[in-house]
Structure formats: structure tokens, C-alpha cells
């Protein structure tokens, strides 16, 4: 489940936020501090996660640090998915 989730997020970020010729992402590539996803684009990434996993991430939890890599995003999603359950 965790691996599936990781790949889903990684594929989505690659498809939506990277240009065609970019270096491939890893699960730990810095997304926000690395300038791949800016704070405005983070809103659409958050929306994707909320839609896809039927969760609600409060704005105060949607920090640049929490969105800074695929691994961190997955941890965030899992935390809110567990709360929902």
C-alpha cells in the first residue's frame, strides 16, 4: 500500500510539475526547497491528494516542510488517512 502510494505521488508530481527533459525524481528529491513545486503550486498538489485519498489536510499542516519530498507527502497522507479511518 505504502509503495503504491509512493509511486502514485511520484508519478503525479513528475507528470504535473516537471518538464519533459528534467532529471527523474526520487522519493527524497526536495520538491519545495528544490524549486520544483512552488508555494502556489502546492495548493494544486494538496487538492490532488485530498481528492484522490478523500482526506482533508488543514492549511496549517500543509507546510513547505511537509510537502518537501514524495516520502514526506506520503507520511502526511498516511497520517490523515489513518485519522479518517
Amino acid at each position, binding site marked *: 500500500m505504502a509503495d503504491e502510494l509512493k509511486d502514485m505521488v511520484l508519478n503525479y508530481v513528475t507528470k*504535473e510539475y516537471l*518538464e*519533459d*527533459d*528534467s532529471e527523474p525524481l526520487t522519493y527524497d528529491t*526536495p*520538491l*519545495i*526547497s*528544490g*524549486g*520544483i*513545486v*512552488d*508555494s*502556489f*503550486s502546492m*495548493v*494544486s498538489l494538496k*487538492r*490532488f491528494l485530498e*481528492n484522490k485519498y478523500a482526506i482533508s489536510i488543514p492549511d496549517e499542516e500543509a*507546510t*513547505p*516542510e511537509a510537502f*518537501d519530498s514524495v516520502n514526506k507527502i506520503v507520511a502526511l497522507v498516511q497520517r490523515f488517512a489513518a485519522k479518517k479511518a
Partner: protein
Amino acid sequence: MSNIGSYDERVKNFSWSIAEKELGYKPGDVINIGWYCTDRICQQGKGERVALYWEGFTGIEKTYTYNDIRLASNTIAAFLSGLGIQPGERVCLFMDRIPELYLGFLGILKTGAIAQPLFSAFGDESLLVRLSNAEATAVITQKKHAPKVRKILDKMPHLKHIIIVDHDGTAPLKDREVAFSLEKAAPVEHFDVYPTKAESPSVIHYTSGTTGMPKGVQHVHYSLISQYLTAQWALDLRDDDIYWCTADPGWVTGTSYGIIAPFALGVTQCVLDAGFSAEAWYKWIEKRKVTMWYSAPTAIRSLMKAGDEIVKKFDLSSLRHLASVGEPLNSEAVVWSRKVFGKPFYDTYWQTETGSIVISNYPGMEVRAGSMGKPFPGITGTVLDPIKNEPYTTHGKIGLVALKFDWPSRMRTYWNNKEAFQKKFRNGWYITGDRSKLDADGYFWFAGRDDDIINTAGHLVSPFEVESALLEHPAVAESAVVSKPDPLNLEVVKAFVALKPGFTASKDLDLEIMNFIRKKLSPLAMPQEIEFVPSLPKTRSGKIMRRLLHAKEWGEEIGDTSTLEND
């Protein structure tokens, strides 16, 4: 003692010739910003001083002395000349904040060509509109951004060269592309800097229009006079400062105060090419021992959000002076910075069109938290009655911020759009498009925009441009775009969308439309909220009443609705 000393004395005895004399410039002389920022500093014996500390997000560091930036800008200028770039041609810079952006800017100016910096997060549509209007003949970019240029190449017959600064040979160059590596190119010791004069065009920055497409604000080399003096007096920049301007040179702050002013003053500046994080920013200040920090209210509010505890982890005692620009600085931010940094952020006010700071809080002068401050010496500013187009005779009334249009860095025109330029004036005053009031002591207090332009995190977004792009989405029948209050970014973009028959509102469609705009225009222009509506409020003549939607978002009175359709 601050550089400005007594504000009142400076106002009394002011002349722009103060800057001209310091720069060794006399009316009629050659004046080239590229030369002033590099060769002149070396001629003053500061060639070995660090001009730029740069660090990329992967931790790569680069350091350039003034002699290095002289050589690098010569090398880029020689490369451009070798390609056949002529004085007056527009050369676009479309890059992240890598050293080539800063050095390329100076190199372009040395050839006499006009630099056209564009924000690297722009999508292909935003890029096309701006490159086409400027009829740019060359773009300097990175391989990661080249696909956006390729996508629109067929629509730009004027574009002759796409210069890729980090081509590594892994993929072949495509149509009109050429590789240039600053590190591999032989340094050019001597380049004949083009003898531009005071009124020679230097830079075009694009800014959003209310009803039309973006406008190219054209500046001249003489702008240096204002930028040099305002950096000394308003930002209090000193010879031994380590200066950090957080702005991206895709916007005017990043060129006026992120390239031109600090380099012309010969100070050391640092650039961190990484996304925002409070930890990374504080670490950077500590590491580089930043003394003067020029940032934006959104960034300051983001730091506030990160809390006070994190500040204690770092030694920020090097900070001597702090200033802010881009949107009104709320009084809470001033109070907070006093508490955590021991000094306030000084708000500065200006626009792409003004080219330099025109209203400011000055070191040594009382900071009235939340106020824009007072006009820079030599600049006449007022608040106009919007009906009579004359300055109010009593204080405290909200009106239009207006300026006498006579300082060195004022824009000279909108590129290919003289009509829009002429519309910026009323009764002999330049109208900024902002509203404010004046208090009895001459401080300006910001009250909002006078038009529909959205100021999000200090960047202006045109509702018209977003609405036009929305209509290109297959599901959108009509749309209206307004600002929505936001605690972090001051305002964000909100779109009201009516769908075409056969489409149904859903969360997936909402996200699809958001991403559509983000990629087409830019992340800044992406609606942070989309409200699907059956139809939009219109006048009887069919014009969408954006005003009603705006009022709803801001909890304001709706006002006159007598022209509303089906009212």
C-alpha cells in the same frame, strides 16, 4: 548614523546631481549600466571584492569577485555580439536564479541590447504573449525551460536564437538552439561596451494590465541614478554590507535592487536559488552573515507562521537593516520583526513603472507600523481626488496615489503600446493605480488597488489574462476572475466558472482547470479556488459584473446594481 541622515534636510537640499556626481556622470555622457556595475567597480580598486555569493538548491556554491563578473559579462556580451545581436534588440532572460541570469543581464546591457527578464515559472502562453510583444530576437535559458520555448517557436518568427547555458550534450540541440557555457568559454578581458546614453533603452519588464494583455514597461540606462541613490538612502546600503535581496530578477525588484543598485554600489550580495523554507532562509543569513535584507511581506508572514522558536536556533546578529517591498506590510509584521530580530522591517513602495523606490520608510525616521512612509527626496507624491483629479486639500481622505513624473528611473513608455502609457496620466499626474490616504505628517497609508488587478504575494495578476486563458479550456463557457483575501499572500486568484453544456462540476474538473491555468500562465495566476456557477452576473449590455463578485469575496457593499441583467 544612516546614509540618509535627516530626511527633512535631504528633501530641502535635494538634487539628482548628487548621484550623478558620485557616479562620475555628467549630462550627455555615455552611461551603460553593465559597465557601471562591473568595470567601474574594478577601476576603483575593488576587483577582488566578492560581488556575488551564490548557492543552488543542491548545495552547489559559487563565488564571483567584481573582476569575475566583469569578465563573465564581457564574455556573454562577446558571445551575443558574435551571434549578431544588435543594440536595441530585445534579449530575453528565462532562467532560474542561476549566476548566468545575473551575469547575462549585465552582458546584454554591455552590447546595447535591451534585457527582457521573464519569470521562469511562466507557462508557454505567458511566455508567448511577452516574447511576441517585445519581438525578442534571442532567449537565454536552461535546458529545463527550453521545452516551453520550443512549444511556441512556430509562432515567433522574430526569435532567431535560443541560447542554452547548461547544454550537456545528452540530447541534441533543436531548431534555432545554440549552446553556451560560461565555465567553458574563454574569458574575454576586453569588450567594447556599447556607448549607450541616458535615454537609451535598457530593460523591459512586463506587468499585468486591467483590461488588456501584459504591458512591457520600458526603462533606460539613466534609471541607474535613481536606483543607486534610493539603495543608499532608502535601503541604507553601505560599502561593507552583505546584502540579500530575495526577489527574483524575473520581476523588477530583482533587477533594480537585485542586480543594478548593489553592483553599482560595489557591495557584496548573496543569492539563494532555492524554494522557501524558514530554516533554509535563516541558515543562509547566518552562513553569509547578511547585514542588509530586502524581502517581501508574503515571505515575512511565512516566517511568522513558522514561529519564533526556530529563530532562536540561528545566529542572526549580523542583521543591521531590514526592508520590505511588493505589497503593503501589515503592522503585525513590523511588530513581530522588532520582537524576533530586534529591528523593524522598513516598508518601501514602488512599481515596475517607477523603476525605483518612490515612497518609503527611512532609517532614522519614525516607522509608523503599517504606513508606506514618505516620498523619496526629489519625488512629489500626493493623493488625488478621483473626481476632480486634484490633490485633496484635507488629510485622511482616500484617493489615488499620484506622482509628478520626473525622476530618472520612471518608465519611458509601454513597449508598442503608447496608448496605454498615455492613459496613466491625469491632470499632469502619473496615476499609480493604488489608493491611499495621507496623514497630517505626510505619511502615506495604503488602501488598496484602484482597479481589478490582483496583487498576490507582491506579484500583479491580470484577471483579464486569466479569464482569457480559462476560455481556452474545453469545459469553460464563461468565467470571471477576482481577488480573494488571503492571510499569507494578501490576495489570491479566485475564478467563477460557468460550464458548457455536457460538463458537470466535480473535484476532478476543479483540479484539472487549476492545473490548466498553472501550466498555461503561471502558478501565480492559477485560481486557488474555483466556484462553479450556472451563470455570471452581467449588465444588460452583456458585460460581466466582476465588481459584484469581488464585493462578495471581500464582504463589501455591492453598490449600484441598476444595470444588472434580470435585476
